[in-house]
């Protein structure tokens, strides 16, 4: 889908919608069971940032990493999860997964 000169694929649009939804949940105090809204918002912003660095061909690896990272936020504090996310991203690059 084109927005002016920019092209967005469906996953990117969903990720942006998710960020908006999380922002609204924070503003209006909507409850999200088990998940910490601020942690989720931080992770989604980092994911948007890293997604911006990737071409659409690597969506699958990114999708698996994103799912595991979000799941880990349930059990592990935010800082080690961020370390895990960037470390895996770096390894993906070094091992030419992406």
């Amino acid at each position, binding site marked *: 889908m084109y927005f002016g000169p920019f092209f967005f694929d469906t996953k990117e649009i969903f990720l942006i919608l998710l960020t908006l939804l999380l922002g609204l949940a924070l503003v209006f105090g909507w409850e999200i069971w088990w998940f910490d809204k601020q942690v989720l918002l931080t992770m989604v912003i980092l994911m948007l940032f890293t997604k911006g660095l990737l071409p659409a061909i690597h969506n699958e690896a990114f999708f*698996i990493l994103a799912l*595991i990272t979000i799941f880990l936020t349930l059990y592990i504090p935010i*800082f080690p999860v961020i370390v*895990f996310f960037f470390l*895996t991203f770096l*390894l*993906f690059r070094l091992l030419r*997964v992406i």
Partner: protein
Amino acid sequence: MHKKKKTKQYVLIVVSIVFSFVIMRSMTPRLFIANTPTLNPDFVATLQKSPIAVFAYLGNIQEDATLKDHLETAKIPRAIPPEGTNYAPFAKGVQASEGGENERRFVKIEKGTKLEIHTITLSDGKTVKIYVPVE
């Protein structure tokens, strides 16, 4: 051929994720304090010694309880006492600055001193932590 490439891709994804998870779980507590981006002063001190010391430091896996004690100790507030402060010992490994009743007191705890941590609530409802030296 295409299937083989796809399988290799999945294997690499799993290897990257598992390796990162293991590194994150084992290294993060040694490099940073209490799950914050603050660098562990012990690691910084080791870093200044030599690269071999860094590997030795990272390779030495401590017991969970010891690591917990270390993290608790790191939370003790630190202060810079004025120069020329005199200390008098009052427990094994613990010294307190000498001074008048209304003067600020500083407590010096030697490295390796074991402390018990108690949290108590005062009559005004304030919660404080008390560090009791273990003999």
